[in-house]
């Protein structure tokens, strides 16, 4: 049963070409596009990314919008909590006045009084303002002096009298002018008569609510009024949306200026040392052998160097004098001492990738070292590099905050978030906002970079793709 196939001419014709044999049903994705798509699915990472973009705006564009001078001291609004803008009464400049003395009254008691009457006729002269509260009273018979106290809550008898403002040492002094750091709130002034030495157990208390005020010269200095404005008018005080610090400096403006220092260190230092670490580690890993050994032992040596000591040494070596910013030595110390971690990581990756089959194949097909590095090795270590970078940023910000906190960083009046925390922590209980805001910004930044780093690890690692 041998059937012979008869071949015809047509059998030797080329087959008709078919264009649509295979069709790409989905668009082709590059490595980056794929990573971006997967990053977008990660809500936490995406929010962090928006936060970081927001911070960049806050730092770079913010000072153009909020133009207040971060070093300007508004002494009328010291340690002001965040509040709506305030108005103030324009008053005349302060002129020291003579102590009011009732000349008809003897300055000292004639004998040793056993008891004294309480002070009577305690009033305020004029309008009480935050510039000055002028108390006046009638002299007490046989008194040899008076003690003046001020409290922010109503005293109960002789308890809780508050601050001892003055001990007047003559019985015929009938007034006292208080100018000590007055705020527009209610105060309780207590006067206790003395015999010149000891206080007696009688107290007269007066409740006073000073009106927010500003002097003409201060208002002019801060450009709140024109030169033809007169005392008695109402002036709009400078607005501080996030409050002020212990010298009346605007917190928002200081946070913006501080962000420059913090983010500068936080971005520039990691960028440089991660880049250096990549080259160093890549070089060591690719060459391998003795070179690798020598290079990596040197990296181990650098790891052992103490950061703080070097920071101080650089500060001295650069001739950074007192009162000058320590940011440059900090930057250099960070760069010189922190690269080995990246270098080790990249070297490990390169060592692993170098031995992969596709590298062998590429080499056999005639790929030179530069081609191999550029086409295969670097793209495959990219994930590790970017993740190191995002984790290095918060750690650098934290280092800066810490160094400024211990006074090794910025020089006043330049703020950084760390130095602002340092100042704020002193008044944590009485003015919490001075610590809260810079601490909040540090926390948000560090958290945002960390979460973004997490997100990037997942997005950039091509092996994670199969698990989805």
């Amino acid at each position: 049963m041998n059937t012979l196939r008869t071949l015809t001419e047509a059998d030797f014709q080329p087959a008709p070409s078919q264009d649509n044999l295979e069709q790409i049903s989905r668009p082709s994705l590059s490595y980056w596009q794929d990573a971006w798509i997967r990053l977008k699915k990660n809500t936490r990472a995406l929010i962090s990314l928006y936060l970081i973009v927001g911070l960049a705006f806050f730092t770079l564009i913010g000072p153009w919008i909020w133009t207040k001078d971060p070093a300007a001291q508004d002494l009328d609004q010291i340690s002001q909590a965040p509040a709506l803008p305030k108005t103030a009464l324009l008053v005349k400049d302060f002129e020291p006045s003579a102590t009011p003395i009732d000349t008809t009254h003897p300055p000292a008691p004639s004998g040793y009084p056993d008891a004294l009457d309480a002070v009577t006729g305690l009033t305020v002269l004029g309008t009480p303002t935050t510039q000055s509260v002028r108390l006046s009273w009638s002299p007490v018979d046989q008194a040899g002096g008076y003690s003046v106290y001020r409290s922010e809550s109503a005293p109960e008898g002789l308890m809780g009298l508050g601050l001892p403002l003055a001990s007047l040492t003559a019985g015929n002094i009938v007034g006292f002018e208080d100018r000590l750091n007055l705020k527009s709130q209610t105060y309780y002034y207590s006067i206790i008569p003395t015999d010149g030495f000891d206080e007696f157990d009688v107290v007269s208390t007066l409740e006073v609510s000073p009106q927010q005020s500003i002097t003409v010269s201060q208002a002019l200095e801060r450009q709140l009024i024109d030169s033809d404005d007169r005392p008695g008018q109402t002036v709009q005080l400078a607005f501080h949306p996030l409050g002020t610090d212990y010298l009346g400096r605007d917190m928002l403006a200081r946070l913006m200026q501080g962000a420059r220092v913090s983010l500068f260190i936080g971005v520039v230092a990691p960028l440089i040392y991660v880049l250096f670490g990549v080259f160093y580690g890549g070089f060591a890993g690719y060459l391998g052998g003795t070179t690798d050994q020598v290079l990596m032992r040197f990296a181990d040596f650098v790891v052992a160097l103490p950061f703080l000591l070097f920071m101080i040494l650089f500060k001295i070596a650069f001739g950074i004098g007192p009162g000058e910013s320590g940011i440059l030595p900090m930057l250099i110390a960070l760069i010189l001492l922190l690269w080995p971690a990246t270098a080790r990581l990249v070297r490990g990756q390169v060592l692993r990738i170098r031995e992969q089959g596709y590298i062998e194949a590429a080499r056999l097909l005639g790929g030179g070292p530069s081609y191999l590095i550029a086409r295969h090795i670097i793209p495959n270590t990219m994930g590790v590099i970017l993740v190191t970078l995002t984790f290095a940023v918060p750690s650098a910000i934290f280092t800066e905050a810490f160094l400024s906190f211990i006074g090794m960083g910025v020089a006043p009046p330049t703020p950084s978030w760390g130095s602002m925390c340092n100042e704020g922590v002193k008044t944590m209980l009485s003015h919490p906002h001075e610590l809260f805001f810079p601490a909040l910004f540090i926390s948000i930044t560090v958290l945002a970079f960390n979460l973004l780093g997490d997100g990037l690890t997942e997005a950039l690692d091509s092996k994670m793709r199969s698990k989805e």
Partner: protein
Amino acid sequence: MNFLKSLAIALCLFSGAIEAQSVDATRQVVKIALAQEPPQLNSMKATDQVSIFVLGHVMEGLTRYDRRGNLAPGVAERWTLSATSAKFWLRKDAKWSNGDPVTAHDFVFAWRNAVDPKTASEYAFILYPVKNAEAINQGNLPITDLGIRALDDHTLEVTLERPTGYFMKLTAFVTTFPVQERFYRSVEASYAADASQMLYNGAFKITDWVHSASLKMQKNETYWNRQTIRLNGIDADYITADTRARLNLFIDDEIAYTQLDGETYKDALKNQFRIRPFATGSVYFLEYNYRPERITSNLKLRQAIQAAFDPDEFVNKVLQTPGNLPGASLFPSWIKGVNKTFREEYPAKVLRPDLAHAKRLLAEAKAELGVEQIPPLVLLVSDSPTATKQAEYTQGMLKTKLNLDIKIDVQTFKQRLAKMTEGDFDIVGAGWGPDFDDIMTFGDLFASWNLNNRGRYNNPEYDRLVRIAMNSSDPTTRMEAMAGIQTLVYDDAIILPMYEQGVIYIQHPKIKGLRRTVIGSDPDFTHARIVP
């Protein structure tokens, strides 16, 4: 939750059991905190408040201050004073902590050493009323020529250079404390560097000194007047300049005494502590550097700063604590004059800011110096929170008002003193507390020979006025000369007076007899006791 609760209860019980005690009535021990490590416990060289505080408790001079603040016999039992000499009879039961008697030779040794130019004591000048002291200190005479002589072990004779009304008050001052020569020679350079490197003749002795951490003092059993000393120990378990930390220690009953500042007093008020005021008698000022290469040697520049500064604003808005007085003069308001206080008799010119005038002066200063813009000035300050805040205020104020750039140099107290002595500053935030109860304690501060004149201010007119006051015992002549100095301080803008210090403090209610004093060792625990 249950676990946490029981843990919390356990912790409460635990802390109750070892409850911190800042005062101990049965043991009569009080715990305090020092503002800093005492920089110099060598009595011949000590200059600062903390060292003087410690030395005032562990050493004793010929005289001392009693619990009422009056001069009382110390090592000297009695004395006679004439215009040109003084004679002291030392008590025989005054002993060093090693049992040796305190002799007249110990005073001779200490005084000679203090004026010896090799010792380079900054307080040598305080002994200038003693014959030949000044010449010796300038290296012109041997130290054996000093007008002090031990007639025998217990009789001391001092010859004076000139009649000095306040001489007796000097004998309670730290520089005049005795030092045993034999012991000093045995430790030489390390004298007073550690608790065991010192001999004590005061009411207490240092028993344990962990540098920068703690310093414990115990009653000195060899002290002649030990019967009157009630306290058995003063434990400075903490050394911190941070007033916040000290207040927290006080709240936790870890320390029995602390000073408050603008940031801490509100918390003290909230805790209902009884706040006590005290005028320390010290004057705080900005001191300029007059070395010729320094730009601050320009008078117009200093006057511009003077015209821009508002002491009233500074005291009320920046310092924020009651009791401080706006600075106006080198002489504080408590200094005695002829009949009343000096400042009542010779009122100081009130410093009021005048911005237009300040700007005019600054323009003149720039013209004189031939510069477009004044180069940045270095403001040297201590590292206490209060000092840095004041420095930041000054920096901001001079920048806004005069467009002057200031660099703040924050240093530890010891380092600040060293830098002041080296002249490594343009402006320094300094203060001066009285050493003895006489106007001269402030008056000669900027005399050309005074080593505490760290800015090297040198003005023959100033020196002339000081010499008039020094060489006279007539109060009016002396006060007239000092009034001249007060005017000179303003006209020549020698310093910028910032404030006269008043402090507020809190102390444990069980401590009685704690003496606050303007002069010498403050606070003085010597006669304090703890009531149950």
